């Protein structure tokens, strides 16, 4: 079985992966990072979204071997030195989650957006989250959470 080497949440990792193994299964299985969820197994719901080299990527439609040499970030890697990411703070402040199942994917799609765009418009946020399904919140508070996180990050940057 081939060995795949990549960085996950800043640390070197290696995993044994058959050519057909999906990245999400390696993340949830061998790497035991269960924060990344499988909601539809067809690339349609976005719950499995992770960052691959900074890009929001569905880990259920990426082969594990394709992550060779890449830098992968999952929801477990969002916090920094034990401090929650601004998105994590904003999602709880703005009630941007209910059941929390789609949330890791939402957070990672939003994180990818905020890396590129520190001051996204509502339309930018909608565009970034269009591929992430949520059945609980009606998206109202999710968009508000991303706006709040962007504000927090800008305030931090200005300080």
């Amino acid at each position, binding site marked *: 079985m081939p060995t795949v080497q990549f960085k996950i949440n800043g640390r070197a990792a290696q995993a044994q992966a058959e050519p057909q193994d999906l990245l999400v299964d390696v993340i*949830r299985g061998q790497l035991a990072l269960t924060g990344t969820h*499988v909601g539809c197994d067809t690339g349609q719901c976005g719950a499995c979204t992770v960052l691959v080299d900074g890009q929001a990527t569905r880990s259920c439609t990426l082969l594990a071997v394709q992550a060779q040499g890449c830098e992968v970030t999952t929801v477990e890697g969002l916090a920094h030195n034990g401090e929650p990411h601004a998105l994590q703070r904003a999602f709880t402040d703005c009630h941007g989650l*209910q059941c929390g199942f789609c949330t890791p994917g939402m957070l990672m799609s939003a994180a990818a957006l905020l890396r590129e765009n520190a001051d996204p418009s509502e339309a930018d946020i909608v565009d970034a989250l269009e591929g992430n399904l949520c059945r609980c919140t009606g998206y*109202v508070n999710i968009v508000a959470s991303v706006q709040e996180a962007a504000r927090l990050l800008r305030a931090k940057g200005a300080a």
Partner: protein
Amino acid sequence: MSAVPAVEVGRFGSGQQVKRVEDPALLAGKGQFTDDVAPARQLHVAFVRSPHAHARIVSIDTAAASKMPGVAAVFTGAQLAAAGVKPMPVVVPFKRPDGSDVVTAPRRALAHERVRFAGEAVAMVVAASRDGARAAADAVWVEYDELPAVTDAVAALKPDAPRVVDGLPDNIAAVSQHGDAKAVDAAFERAAVKVAVDIVNQRLAPSPIEPRTVLADFDAKSQRLTIRLSSQMPTGVRTSVCDALGLKPDAVRVVVGDVGGGFGMKTGAYPEDIALAHAARALQRPVKWRAERLEEFLSAVHGRDVVSHCEMALDANGKVLGVRVKAVGNTGAYATGTGILIPLVIGPWVTTSIYDIQAIDLRLQAVMTHTNTIGAYRGAGRPEAIYVIERLMDAAAREMRLDPAELRRRNMIRPDQMPYTNPMAQVYDCGQFEKILDQGLKLADWHGFAARREASRRAGKLRGRGIATFLEWTSGMAFEERVTVTVTPDGMIEVNSAVQGMGQGIATSLAQLAVDVFQVPLDRIRVVMGDTDRNNGFGSAGSRSLFIGGSSVHVASKRTIDEARKLAADALEAPAADIEYRSGRFSVSGTDLGIGLFELAGKQHDGRIYVDSTNAVGGPSWPNACHVCEVEIDPATGSVQLVAYASVNDIGRVVSPQIARGQVEGGAVQGVGQALLEHMAYDPAGQPLSASFMDYALPRVDGFRAFKTEFDTSIPCTTNAIGSKGVGELGTIGATPCVVNAVIDALDHAGQGRNAERVQMPLTPERVWRALHGDYDPPPLQG
């Protein structure tokens, strides 16, 4: 001395916005959904599912699959039947048209001899890996003798329709008639105004984002089966598994961790749960199944699917004299108690809603077809019934050229009529519906609509305005909850409840209610749910968790203080009557003598203060609301945009304002989904046509989000200890008729007049465009 610092309890108690206790773990990726638990030696399950809607199983060849790498076992329905696994029981207190008892086809964990809907599980493969199980499932060879199928409930009523249950003269699972037909006939005879609408309340897929997941494990030492799964009703699952496998309740433990959305779809046991329980016992290994999304569309229960012909009679002043409804509900192939109860009883309970209407004539049929089971989906019966009455109200207002809000006002039950008994013998304890209406109209700027319509017209859009004023029944018909409270010397108060978190944030709300009584910080309360070894009850459904479960937490907490007061009296050698409790500390009034609650717990012989408390509420609560929305239609494409949505909601006392708002708005988006987007469609041969998120249109982030949501907390429920009313389903129930009424208003104004009432959900661009050109679907019930 207690280690607990003095706190301002008001910051954490009910009515205050707090951060949800559920959030930190979920946001860190540390939640514990069923698939996140992976014991060593776990095996994986894949199901072989029927490609046919109706077929005889001629043979199943598992030889090739059994030899594939890593395959531990392949089970068929025949094997399970031979092993004594019983079909799932159906208990329904209803009758068929000839007075005989309800008869349904036996629902087995795995189909045996016959399949009755596309997607029914016929075999189960257990293998070392998920992929291995999937590959082996593909190698199971099933020979079918295909039989004719019927998927539409009205078509299933035809004399020559294919039968779902052998030997029955028809496909009717049950019938029910409510009201006084003669009185309604008389009302129609003397009526000045009569209106009728034909309604399709289409089939929906509830679609929580977490698919069903089950992990069953058998411990040979204790001979106990542990089932971990994503469910709203742990105890109900235990009962069903015990019944099917012939086990005693103490031989089965059901554990539920985080649940990734329920919406009614995760109530009760599924055949797959029983199949896994059997496999775990047979193989003495942990076995896991995580449903693929396709399997969820095929075999997780669907909701709604009721068609009706509805009539209303009014006098010249707009007072409703009577309502007549003829409805056919689709139960799917395997009619369940829930699937029959929803159209035949639960819906009728609220048919007259908040209106003073005593003459009803409801003739209802629950009909079996070769489709997946219909079960509970957010609202379960109330959305269908409220949709009917709110559509009729608008039709009558249009006919009478009256403001639809004014027509509703003329018919509302007045506060001085409370408690009010509706014609289904349901008693509303309280409600000030006109007051809620007035606030809703103000919040929505109802009377400023003409200018907005004109502005839309200038922009080339057709604007419509819709309203729904309504109530709902809550409780799930289970009014009691047991709560245990354990105070420990480490400064924690554990509250154990048998209601079930499924994303709604009930742990936070229960903790806030405990804070109200104990006057300690929120982080001193630990809410524990989801373990049938600890507590049992009905679970979470029917918007019952807060007003029933929460009332029980409130009462149990007070009983704990009462019990602890006696213990404090002993410890302080003072009469209990002289002991005061405040913020985690008992003291003897007028002295500086005292003892902390947690220190007191440490002094007890078992090192804790423990109270086991059962409490019942006095009846269902009746949350109610006024929802008003506006839409814009693009006449070129027929696409509908929701552009304004305001609601004033009476849910009695609000415990967690942010959570309540999240429930109403998130729920409303589901209701908008039914109005505009969603349809779980089958073709006439029984093939599902919308079995993926690319085909089944869930609301997405690009929809409407600018809700104006208010609560009137001045009308507490009088039949429970905390004064709260249910909130989980209110938004879903109101949004659907509200949005459809707005679209019909726009179509009416565009020249369609009363014809516009013929449009059916979901209001897709195609349907709306056709409606604008006078082309409508035929009514579902002819003649």
